[in-house]
């Protein structure tokens, strides 16, 4: 019982904290973000296992976490609001070549991030070559070049 009582709240707390920390954290865009996610994984390990390092505990926890994931995906299908909270929605950062400074500021994305994505995805050199830039639910930035 303790395995489930540890696994469920840790899963939910981690989900809520990750969603409220902002999408840039998810994108692992900098070494700092990557290190953060590695350390978080190590930190939650002990909270999940407690002092029980048996195979049984590990199996129960793994199944519990997968079951939570499946339950969440089913709940998302029934509730658009929950789906929006859990997955977020895309945010348009540049529309028809015009930066949306509100969205960029709130999402903590700057022009350098957008230009980096433009170079990586399409080999674009300048801001005026970008038609649309969208911050996706994954935290990545997708670029649509001008025709």
């Amino acid at each position, binding site marked *: 019982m303790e395995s489930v009582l540890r696994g469920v709240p840790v899963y939910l707390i981690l989900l809520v904290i990750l969603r409220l*920390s902002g999408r840039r954290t998810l994108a692992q865009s900098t070494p700092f973000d990557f290190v953060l996610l590695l350390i978080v994984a190590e930190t939650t390990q002990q909270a999940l296992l407690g002092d029980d390092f048996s195979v049984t505990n590990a199996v129960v926890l793994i199944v519990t976490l997968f079951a939570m994931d499946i339950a969440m995906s089913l709940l998302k299908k029934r509730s658009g609001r929950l789906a929006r909270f859990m997955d977020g929605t895309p945010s*348009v950062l540049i529309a*028809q070549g015009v930066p949306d400074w509100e969205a960029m500021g709130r999402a903590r994305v700057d022009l350098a991030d957008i230009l980096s994505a433009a170079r990586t995805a399409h080999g674009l050199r300048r801001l005026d070559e970008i038609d649309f830039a969208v911050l996706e639910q994954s935290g990545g930035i997708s670029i649509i070049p001008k025709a």
Partner: protein
Amino acid sequence: MQTAPRQTVPLRPDGLQLDERRDWQRRHWRAERIAWAGFGALVLAALLGLTGAGGPLASARIGIGPAEAAMPRVGRLQRAGLLTLRLPAEPALHEIRLGPGFTDHYTLGTLHPRPRHEATGPGGTRLVVAAPGGEVRFQVRPHRPGLARFTLGIDGHAARLGALVLP
């Protein structure tokens, strides 16, 4: 034949087809900022000792007759803490009673100095210790979360101690 469920993604005036929901996003950004303030408050509370594991506000002190007890104000499940008693020089042997509520939340670990006599019964745990240095230290390990309240008696004087044990 099964038809695919109807899914619509709105088309923006600028030609981009995606479901942005900017109003919802603004509310989410506001919630993020509030959450960040909460994260900062939690870090501050932890630094002050209000989440257990040390800090300037971590311990509570209470007088019990001529003696004094210091105990973690906030504990964490399965994390050992110290219950420290400062005892007067007289008498040479001190009688310490831990009420029944103690074992509901705590397991008694190492005692320093070792007690001369120890007995546990329905009324709690009775210890007889000599404290030449004037101090007795108990290692206490919470085994149940919640509000822990118990009576601590020293040489006939008693007080109610309480602590919050976090999961």
